[in-house]
């Protein structure tokens, strides 16, 4: 199994190939489009995270001792970043998730999207990802 750090490194290397923001954004838009759609039954109001402008849904369940996240957004660029975040965090141990940061977002030049003042709901989503990890970790112990 790849560690969170390994995956982050992988992503950073991938993005290093892009020459400008256009390529980066095109790639993210692709990612956004190809993100498996969240199960309709989890696309509920209780799983919604409201940014000012784009809605974000997030859901998690435990399989063995690993957390499987699914998530979605109505904005495609937001969804692209979600795809990256899920690639990093999904199918990992809750304790590893809790220990991890999201510094790779900076390194691939998307820092602005995770600014706490950004009106896209991503910051709250990451908080929610971690909340799930806390909840399920308690369950495991």
């Amino acid at each position, binding site marked *: 199994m790849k560690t969170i750090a390994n995956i982050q490194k992988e992503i950073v290397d991938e993005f290093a190939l892009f020459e400008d923001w256009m390529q980066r*954004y*095109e790639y993210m838009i692709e990612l956004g489009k190809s993100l498996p759609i969240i199960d309709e039954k989890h696309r509920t109001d209780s799983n919604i995270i409201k940014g000012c402008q784009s809605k974000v849904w997030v859901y998690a369940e435990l399989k063995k001792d690993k957390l499987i996240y699914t998530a979605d957004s109505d*904005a495609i660029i937001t969804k692209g970043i979600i795809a990256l975040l899920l690639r990093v965090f999904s199918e990992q141990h809750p304790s590893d998730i809790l220990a991890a940061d999201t510094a790779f977002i900076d390194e691939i030049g998307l820092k602005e999207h995770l600014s706490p003042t950004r009106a896209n709901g991503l910051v709250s989503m990451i908080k929610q990802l971690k909340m799930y990890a806390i909840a399920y970790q308690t369950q495991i112990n």
Partner: protein
Amino acid sequence: MIDIKKIRNDFPILKRKINGNQLVYFDNAATSQTPQVVIDEILNYYSNYNSNIHRGVHKLSQEATDAYEKARQILQLNFNARHSHEIIFTSGSTHSINIVAAGYSNILKKDDEIILSVMEHHSNIVPWQMLCERTGAILRVAPMDQNGGLILEEFESICCDKTQLVAISHVSNALGTINPIESILSIAHSNNAVVLIDGAQAAPHIKIDLQELDIDYYVVSGHKLMGPTGVGMLYGKEKLLNMLPPSQGGGEMIDEVTFEKTIYAKLPHKFEAGTPNIAGGIALGTAINYINEIGYDSIAKYEKSLLDYATSELLEIEGLKIYGQSKQKTAIVSFSIKSIHAYDLGVILDKLGIAVRTGHHCAQPIMDYFQIPGTIRASFSFYNTKEEIDIMVNAIKRAKLMLV
């Protein structure tokens, strides 16, 4: 006539580069940019005569007081108020509306009615909702048509002898619609209702004559008027302001204070508790002078040409829909593009140096009416150009290729 080259030179921020591109600033309805004369006046204030006003015997205090009171007179003249003490300095439109709404807490009674329009900014909704909660008064909403125009007959039909207050925007910030305030005022006045006009979006574009229009209350924001942030105006007819209780207590707004009793000061001080935004008030005066040097007529004509050009160019884009197509509009274009989220388009435009606003524009009821989550809004000012509109239109086409 607009000397666009000269004017653009007056605004230092227009030289800004964003992500390698020249800034194209089309977010003027949110906050307008600041000409050098206004920046210089702020600089001058803090470098030469910064001082607390109204009570100081010394020179700096006199200079600051005189400049502040001169700014009040500039506002009085610009809007043609009868008295300078009818001009209250506030911290912005929101504050101005709240002063009025709070003031009616003990005047309104249960089942009295307040009429708003469906296209109000949240700042012209929430204070009245709070007033209704305090008093038991009832909010009535005048509807609009699919073009974003107020349906005057519907307004007339709900305006009645129960109507105590009417609060309506002169210009809608989300759609650009110019409301028929003359008719609204005459209908309301014939029902003995008092009318507050939210001029936040009108004052930068339209010459307003408060006396001729017989407006009861009028509010504006400095930061949308080429002025600084944190300052605005509440105009009220003398008679009304004298009747309205002060909303805040403090220094400046009292004549005498003992622990038993306090005597309120005369207008305008009654509504200006505490040390105001002195630099802001003075610089707002400078901003108004700057606008008048260019001239409201030239501005209106020029901005109309920008609006027409942008509208026709945008409508060339397939799947693009404009919200707000009233005949009477300021230079605001609110639109959406089929299967593109406003946020996504906003992000790509930003990368290309173009600042537009996306979302509900603090006017959720409008979005609910059109059943959309939000729009992309480009709002123009007299320092914008057709070339900039071309840049935006091309950028939208490019973004569309990426996003769809």
